[in-house]
């Protein structure tokens, strides 16, 4: 299926959970946050949440700012 991650179209295997997605991106240990279709997804719900076709996913972290 096709989803959009941080603005880029990406091909993902059906039924993948957010936990698996984050792991596949090597971000598990990082302080990141995930938003799906403009709703923030709390870390506790990553496991039970499977990515749906054409989801809009945002994965963010902290960078330098003022």
């Amino acid at each position, binding site marked *: 299926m096709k989803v959009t*991650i941080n603005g880029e179209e990406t091909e993902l295997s059906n039924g993948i959970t957010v936990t698996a997605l984050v792991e596949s991106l090597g971000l598990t240990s990082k*302080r990141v946050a995930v938003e799906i279709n403009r709703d*923030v*997804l709390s870390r506790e719900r990553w496991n039970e949440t499977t990515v749906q076709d054409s989801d809009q996913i*945002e994965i963010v*972290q*902290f960078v*330098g*700012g*003022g």
Partner: protein
Amino acid sequence: MSDQYEIAGRSFTSRLIVGTGKYRDFEQTREAVEESGAEMVTVAVRRVNITDRDKENLLDTLDPARYTILPNTAGCYTAEDAVRTAKLAREAGVGNLVKLEVIGDEKTLMPDVPATLDAAAELVRDGFDVLPYVTDDPVACLRLQDMGCAAVMPLAAPIGSGLGIRNPYNIRIILEQSTVPVIVDAGVGTASDAARVMELGCAAVLMNTAIAGAEDPIRMARAMRLAIQAGRDAYCAGRIGMKLYATASSPITGLID
């Protein structure tokens, strides 16, 4: 002399809050923050670069166990985006403090007052400790305080302008009416600007460009740390009054004939 101030139940000794943007690299960021003596630092929330994920994370450099992390909503032009950004930041696990920033014009980066008030109200309802960056507008600051913001953060001058405190009169009005800490955010250019803010009676100063943009950021970080202590001390010490002229500082008796 212990002289702390509180924001949302947290106590701070350093009255300098520093941003972490515009530095050459994380190492320079770390050194400047260290030299500044800051206990709270602002950070921005941005997308992970999926295609190149390896680069170090800012919070590996600035340990949240040591520094209070103040995520900002910089770059947001609507209340909705600011709220989403704040929620993402909280979800990333650095607590519920947020520097609310809703920009009204990309040329001047001046705040959008109505959108800032709307976003602040929603974030307060949602349990955030909100530190709103806003114009030096006494009425806006009154509203933000009344709705339960943890502090008000009027600007000294436009972000990155280095103009210093353009309108001390408004800041004085804001100080007079405020029951929450008044933190001047943005516009400070050099050490005397920072000292002057503290001499007005503000609780703290937040700055980024003035340090990161200096030729020698590390030394400017020190300058700002000292200036803010100096300004705070001068405020507490009770300065002399101003007169058109003049009183001798040497005794006027015992002069030779």
